[in-house]
């Protein structure tokens, strides 16, 4: 386990995470505004990659071209990879989602699945079933060495471009007129309309921006990996969605955080020893225990009227969260419940078992410290992360954006 290895794996994870983030932003923005999972977003990403690759192939780029012409071609490809997905995102919203607005949740999701299938088949019909391959350019594989670590230029470009785009998006949402409209629409569509906001236009704009980001993501992926398959969007889309949920869906910084965490988990998961990763589990366990035993009781007690806050009462609340097996079983036996605090014996026991589970996992990982997980299992990691996060903390790392408005 050399430091070089860890650093280069970290850069790889960051790069992948940034690409997930670009796609995840589209999911999270649409979710924020419409409370709806745009299942077809992954296909928009694929189309971005395909259009970019075919533009470059069509222009016949090669390394003999002068750098200026080459740069021009790349910019053209980028433009195509932005504009075509934008148009498609706009059309999808108009045709398949707008007529369904206000229906129960699963109906638009079904429509989105239909759109996703249609787009996948259209990609096959238009571009053929074979994966598209980029012309191999020297720029694409260029790399340099710092402190004995080889770094691909393109990885740094991806990290820089994505960061810039995310900053731009934050500015757009936080400080512009249309961003304000987006936030208002997301908060309460009806009220926003009464304030004179054209919500239809705002929603269309959200789709267009999200699709443009996904298109850029597709462009970067096809540059980085050199090829893209017609069904790549499914997996990328799901991973991006996982990132969005992981960070707290509807929350823009959350999507970025979630994407980086997921990218890192995936890359670390299959390229580092279990012994190294076990420390992350230990850190998570300690953080979790701190939150459960100190932060949560403190926050919950703040909501209690002063006359009820006797020391005995406070102790009873704190005890529920003191999740040693002893207290866990004690609360279980006492069946102590407090609806106002939403503290229940069952909850305490659940947390206790969660902690025990993490401890066992860490112990098993330390016991097999030198083992690495086979790369074959990499796609499973994202799905497991998705299931675990939805089971235990559906609101994600940042924020509680999924609480329902009544």
């Amino acid at each position, binding site marked *: 386990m050399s430091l070089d290895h860890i650093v280069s794996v970290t850069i790889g994870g960051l790069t992948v995470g940034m690409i997930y983030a670009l796609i995840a932003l589209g999911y999270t923005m649409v979710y924020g505004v419409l409370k709806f999972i745009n299942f077809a977003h992954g296909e928009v990403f694929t189309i971005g990659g395909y259009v970019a690759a075919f533009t470059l192939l069509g222009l016949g780029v090669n390394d003999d071209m002068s750098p200026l012409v080459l740069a021009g071609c790349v910019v053209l490809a980028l433009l195509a990879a932005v504009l075509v997905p934008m148009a498609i995102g706009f059309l999808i919203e108009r045709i398949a989602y707008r007529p369904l607005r206000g229906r129960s949740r699963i109906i638009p999701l079904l429509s989105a699945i*239909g759109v996703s299938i249609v787009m996948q088949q*259209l990609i096959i019909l238009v571009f053929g079933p074979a994966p598209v391959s980029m012309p191999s350019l020297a720029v694409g594989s260029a790399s340099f060495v710092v402190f004995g670590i080889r770094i691909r230029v393109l990885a740094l470009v991806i990290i820089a471009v994505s960061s810039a785009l995310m900053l731009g998006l934050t500015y757009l949402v936080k400080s512009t007129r249309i961003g304000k409209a987006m936030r208002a629409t997301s908060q309460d569509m009806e009220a926003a309309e009464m304030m004179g906001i054209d919500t239809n236009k705002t929603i269309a704009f959200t789709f267009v921006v999200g699709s443009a980001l996904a298109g850029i993501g597709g462009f970067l992926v096809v540059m980085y990996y050199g090829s893209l398959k017609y069904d790549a969007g499914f997996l990328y889309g799901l991973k991006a969605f996982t990132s969005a949920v992981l960070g707290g869906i509807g929350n823009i910084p959350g999507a970025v955080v979630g994407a980086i965490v997921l990218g890192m988990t995936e890359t670390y998961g299959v390229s580092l020893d279990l012994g190294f990763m076990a420390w992350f589990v230990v850190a998570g366990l300690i953080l979790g225990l701190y939150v459960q035993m100190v932060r949560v009781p403190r926050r919950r007690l703040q909501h209690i009227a002063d006359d009820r806050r006797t020391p005995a009462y406070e102790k009873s609340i704190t005890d529920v969260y003191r999740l040693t097996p002893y207290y866990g079983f004690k609360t279980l036996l006492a069946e102590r419940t407090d609806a106002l605090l939403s503290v229940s014996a069952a909850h305490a026991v659940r947390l206790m078992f969660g902690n025990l589970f993490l401890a066992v996992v860490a112990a098993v990982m330390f016991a097999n410290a030198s083992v690495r997980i086979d790369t074959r299992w990499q796609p499973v990691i994202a799905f497991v992360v998705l299931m675990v996060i939805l089971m235990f903390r559906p609101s994600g790392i940042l924020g509680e954006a999924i609480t329902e408005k009544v």
Partner: protein
Amino acid sequence: MAAMTERISSVLARVPRGVYMALAVVLAAGFPLLNVIGVVETAWLRVGVMSLLFVMLALGLNIVMGETGLLNLGYIAFFAFGAYTTALLSSPKFELRWPFLAVVVVSTLIAMLAGFVIGLPTLRLRGDYLAIVTLAFGEIVRLTIINLQGFTNGPNGITGIYSPLLAGGSEVKTGLAAWLTVDKPIEYYYLVLVAVVVVSILLANLKNSRVGRAWNALREDELAAISSGITASRAKMLSVVLSAGIAGFAGSLYAYYSNVISPESFLFMQSVIVVCMVVLGGMGSIPGVVVGAIVLQALPQVIRQAAGAARSDFEVYRMLIFGVLIVVMVIFRPEGLLPDKLWRRESHEVDPRELEKTRQSLFDLEEGEKDLEV
């Protein structure tokens, strides 16, 4: 013209439902006879068996999706559980040959157990999140099947699954035992048909029972249902476990029928196809779902035969049409081809004429009151 159609439909509506059902069963049971007298090829019998298996899957998915209103996008995973259990218990892989009934029961139970395990932590999630979790579950199952090569042979799948013996014993004997071995398409057809009929009768009765009403209530308004005393978690769990069991049952029959199973048969797209069948037929409507499954499974084969299209191209167009179909159905006819009564009422906006009538009568009432005052 319009009056005529109305008359016909009113006459059709007066025919008791049992007549239609009996007619459907007779038609389905008579279909293989066309093969026996040599009108249709045996290939069509195979299409028939697959259609019936998908009918069963669609009926199972309909419980969660149509009756309880929970979208399951990883439904094919339960099918895989059933199929792989059967393959492991009745193939040269582990040198096992359990009796048919035992295998089917165990496969069903394993799939139900999988449903229970996945339902336990996820059922409290809201609809769309549940859909994505089940999708992830389906993919995890498929990828795990591919990766656990010692157990499942990975991507190669398990081959040489034995034919079911309806009467015990582990060797194919002569006489009655040989006669009771299911190994010809026509025999599989009737085996699956009996299973489908039994399952659909069971589900039709369940739908009109206390449990079925609880499911529908949860679908319409969870809060109201809970307030009227329905234990949401129990009812939802029952529907998930039951639908998983039906998928496991179908998967077991599928493994027997096809002799070979591989992870290729349990792709996400398969789950979507089953969803598509339920949407097309009409969520919550048993006859609708049956029709939807038959149309979507058999019709493409008929078209393929007629067009003689190349295989790869054909798949693309088939999926394209499925996708368009889903979108068009949910936008224009969300209640499906043969809708369930409740869904029709729910899924459409209020009919403007109806609204006008209501308003008129309210208006009349006001007028009347005014008259009284004067």
